[in-house]
């Protein structure tokens, strides 16, 4: 049982939870995720760690209420307990000094992007971040992203914040202007697919943090398998980050909907 120390909202459906998990806070590195379970009938759901405070013994999770389990999680308040939290899981981001890093996040993907961008900044890179959402409500953590970036481009579909356009429009702006040595993309699979297509055209090495379905999260079930470079890999133990140019995003998109029929019948 892990206590929720604080809860704030980014929007009606997106909450930030600070969760007591001292061992995870101590061990986690950028790119890692946890599996959480709410209630005895609860599902095991993977969530990328958005931040940690070792002194407070806590980790930060950003959750968007989209399905049964994320709704249950978002319904918890400060002082409530999450039934199970296990982690950190997955391989940590391989952080190195490469020059200029384009850090791109879409929607709640901006949360896991934050520790990754911070790590690249601390490693001595110039970090240019592109954060995007449908509207201003979906662009989260702008202040925090600014603190670890040399420059931030904000994009919204409707132009309600920053520039009007997609994340790829913001990325193009930067790529057309200056030399980019590497890109990191975190967000919805469809966004990562188009972001990867863009950087491939420009020959920019790109990491994508994948959000595959999982059950155990430790390599046991294979629900999270994804094709990378023609080979089947497990997102939980081989990832969650892969070379974005090698990922079969269409397969990932299809697999994310693997239980859509079964799940919608569960949501009354």
């Amino acid at each position, binding site marked *: 049982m892990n206590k929720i120390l604080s809860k704030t909202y980014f929007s009606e459906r997106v909450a930030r939870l600070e969760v007591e998990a001292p061992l995870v806070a101590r061990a986690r590195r950028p790119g890692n995720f946890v599996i959480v379970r709410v209630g005895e009938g609860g599902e095991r759901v993977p969530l990328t760690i958005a931040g940690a405070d070792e002194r407070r013994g806590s980790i930060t999770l950003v959750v968007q209420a989209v399905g049964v389990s994320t709704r249950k999680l978002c319904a918890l308040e400060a002082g409530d307990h999450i039934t199970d939290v296990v982690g950190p899981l997955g391989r940590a981001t391989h952080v190195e000094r490469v020059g200029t890093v384009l850090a791109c996040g879409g929607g709640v993907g901006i949360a896991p992007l934050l520790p990754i961008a911070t790590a690249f900044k601390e490693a001595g890179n110039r970090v240019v971040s592109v954060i995007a959402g449908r509207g201003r409500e979906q662009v989260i953590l702008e202040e925090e992203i600014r603190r670890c970036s040399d420059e931030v481009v904000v994009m919204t579909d409707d132009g309600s914040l920053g520039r009007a356009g997609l994340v790829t429009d913001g990325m193009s702006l930067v790529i057309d202007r200056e030399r980019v040595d590497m890109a990191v993309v975190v967000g919805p699979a469809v966004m990562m697919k188009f972001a990867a297509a863009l950087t491939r055209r420009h020959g920019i090495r790109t990491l994508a943090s994948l959000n595959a379905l999982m059950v155990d999260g430790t390599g046991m079930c294979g629900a999270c398998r994804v094709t990378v470079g023609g080979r089947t890999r497990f997102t939980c133990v081989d990832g969650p980050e892969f070379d974005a140019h090698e990922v079969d995003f269409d397969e990932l998109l299809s697999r994310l909907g693997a239980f859509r029929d079964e799940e919608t019948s*569960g949501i009354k």
Partner: protein
Amino acid sequence: MEKMSDRNEAWRKATRDSLPPRERMAIERVKMPEVAPARRVACRELEVNEGLTPGMARREACRCLDCVVPTCVEGCPVGVDIPGFVKEIERGEFLQAAAVLRRASALPAVCGRVCPQERQCEERCVRAKRPGGEAVAIGHLERFAADAELASGAAPEERVTSVDAARVAVIGSGPSGLSCAGDLARAGVAVTVFEALHEIGGVLKYGIPGFRLPNGVVDEEVDRLRRLGVRFVTNFVVGMTGTVEQLRAEGFCRFYVSSGAGLPRFMGIPGENYNGVLSSNEYLTRVNLMGAGSAGADTPVYRGGRVVVVGGGNTAMDSARTALRLGAERVTVVYRRGEREMPARVEEVRHAREEGCEFLTLTNPVAYLADARGRVRQVMVQRMELGEADEDGRRSPVAVAGSEHALDADMVVVAVGVSPNPIIPASVPGLDVSRRGTITVDPVTMRTSVPDIYAGGDIVRGGATVILAMGDGRRAARGILDSLPG
């Protein structure tokens, strides 16, 4: 191994003499009462084998001749004193029988249900060696005694852990880890078991279905270990949540790695990542550990109309039978060798067939076909024939050219084996690992290349049975105890 009980004790001699061997030989082997197939497939959790009655058990125990040289014991990986416990049953001392079992096995109620006795103790029974002879039903008797003890609510052994005891960390709470933890705790060692999942029991919980091994039985066995002083920590992935190095710094002086054979194997054929194709680990975990398909469970699972299960082991049978219980219309087990070569227990194959599973042997999938949404719709299979025997003496299947044909399927469960989980081997510097990814150990002490780390079960064997994993746990406990100072 445990010392055998004294067969010349007065009660034992008297029991032996109470019935002449000729009469013992005349008794027919007991039949395990089973729930009727139609009823059991309609009830997901209902255990198929109902257990012997006391009368049946005592009568079956009479079939044991109490041999001077009990060859059955040689067939038991943990060295249970088989005649010792069987004769206790014969004289009606059921709790004593359980106590004899517990000297060698941490989980008798589990072993009595899932051990392949027909290939171990019962295969070595003298009665099985006679033409037309049938072995004493040792497995059924083991389950009977263990269940009698659990039902009696009899207190477990005294807690013996001393305050200044050595601290040992067991990594993984499957049968191997539980067996090691039990032996260590009984010897007064302070044991903590670290489990990655949210429940204790490993494969006993996520893998073996309730109709073969009810979760309640596992919980009761675990509870006995807890009362013996074993500590359990869930949601802790050693190598990730904390490293072996950190645990050493916290005072753990020996480690037993029983983290199991995590990764499911796939065949690497086209279409294997379509939706609806899943590993048996995923399918069984969703249903057994997460309760998918039951009221109140959030985890989704396919009900399946036409289900194909690939493989011929117990896991394949478990998957096929689970699919029937979740309402599948038709379940076909596809196996590349013949039925005789199936690694599954004979009883499991029989149960599966009684429940309506179909078997397509000498057949192997070559590709999966899906609809526009990426959901599997057909399995392309090809016929196989058995060729030359390989080094294990099993005849390798060879594809028959031009024999491809399609089977309809909206769910496919792939149960073709597992590979070792790499998390621990990758996180411990200096740990010798084989080419297959298994941890290399001394076969007697189970010690690895790192002096304070021992290992056993599937992470060493790469995929074996519950009882072999438990045998490793026992040996490792002995190895650890011998290595401790004082």
